[in-house]
């Protein structure tokens, strides 16, 4: 439990740094992949909707605290992303990598769209329709390309650290 919590904290901190520093420097047309949202998708794909939503809440709060903006805005978005990604597990067939790419890309695009919609509701002047559409497409595509490199290791780490897996190791 503690190891798992520590792992998730490490994943979250790394994701925030990657999104705000590393990929900020590798932005394409001003857009970077939503690495934090991809970690939420990874937790949701590994452990289900509830775990994804819980992790999404904490991750969203962390992003709001570190990056600024209204506290709770990213939390709402990532809670919904985590829940939806977890719910999609039962419908995923085919190679895992493909699922990661599709779900990761769609989830990040949805996250940007939800964020833009909420921001519009709070301050209509802060968002334009074309700007939001461009962000949704660019971020979705970029995130889909990066998804296998984020989701796969997080899922693998979580599976290694689940209690069932730990129990199997202790019985050996």
């Amino acid at each position: 439990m503690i190891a798992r919590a520590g792992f998730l904290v490490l994943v979250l901190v790394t994701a925030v740094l990657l999104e705000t520093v590393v990929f900020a420097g590798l932005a394409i047309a001003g857009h970077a992949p939503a690495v934090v949202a991809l970690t939420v998708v990874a937790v949701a794909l590994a452990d289900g909707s509830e775990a994804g939503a819980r992790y999404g809440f904490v991750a969203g709060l962390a992003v709001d605290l570190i990056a600024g903006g209204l506290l709770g805005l990213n939390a709402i978005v990532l809670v919904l992303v985590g829940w939806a990604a977890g719910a999609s597990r039962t419908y995923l067939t085919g190679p895992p990598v493909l699922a990661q790419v599709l779900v990761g890309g769609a989830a990040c695009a949805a996250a940007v769209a939800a964020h833009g919609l909420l921001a519009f509701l709070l301050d209509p002047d802060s968002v334009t329709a074309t700007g939001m559409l461009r962000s949704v497409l660019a971020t979705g595509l970029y995130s889909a390309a990066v998804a296998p490199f984020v989701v796969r290791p997080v899922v693998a780490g979580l599976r290694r650290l689940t209690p069932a897996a730990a129990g199997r190791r202790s019985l050996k």
Partner: protein
Amino acid sequence: MLALLLLAALVLLTLDFREGDEGALSDAQRAVSATFAPVQDALATAIAPVGAFFTSIGELGSLREQNEALESELQALREQQVMLADLAQENERLRDLVGMRERLGLTTSAAQVIAQPPGAFRWTALIDIGADQGVAENMAVINADGLVGKVVGVSSTYARVQLAASPNAGYSVRVDDTGQHGLLSGRGGNPMQLRVISDPEEEVPEGARVVTRAFEGTAIPDGIPVGVVAEASPGQLESAQFLAVRPFVDFLRLDLVLVLIDAPEAPLDDGPGEENQPGEENLPGGGGLPGEEGDGGEQGSGA
């Protein structure tokens, strides 16, 4: 669970929205941001070269164009640099000429040496000004270093100058340090020969400066530097009367010169002046000057 989380997030959002920048939530935000900022800063510094690499990949197309434009500009600047170096040298030569003119205080006309014919005419030079610019025969020609020679033939737009080093040339000179005067003769590529006429027994120190001496009827003004007394050349009659003089002017590298247009006539003097060396009265013709009219040949340069 979902509803609970959404509710909690909504409560925080509402509180933060209502409090604005002054509330506790905003303070907490600032504190966390300040704590995390050094970590972000350190990471940004560490990966800056990597970011620059990927950025440069995206800029390859424009970088190539920029590079080509810069190469062209660099080539043009290099050519300009060479030209500027030439201009700087010419500027220096012209300044030296102006300095010489100011020291003499005479009216001069600048000219470019455009030809130094080989063979029998080796010790003459053609300059690009003539009668139209006020040039006349027997006018002295100098450069920044000293006496170059005198005009021996003139057309409307060109003039021929007999160089002081010419075996046919002779000038009245004096030793600046001792005041002794004598006759200086050119010897082609060898040092000039000075025959001391006044006080020949007085020793002339090596390195003494030799300058022109004005003589009645001549247009060569007094005091134009000619050369320095060198050691007597081997093989010459070693006598105090004959001395070798190394000229200041490099006759093989003549470029810009000044023709002394209004040098005043010298006062009466009882010493010898310039002499016509044998054959000087009729300089070898060979076609005369470009555009020259009249008696078809250069006149011998007289005193």
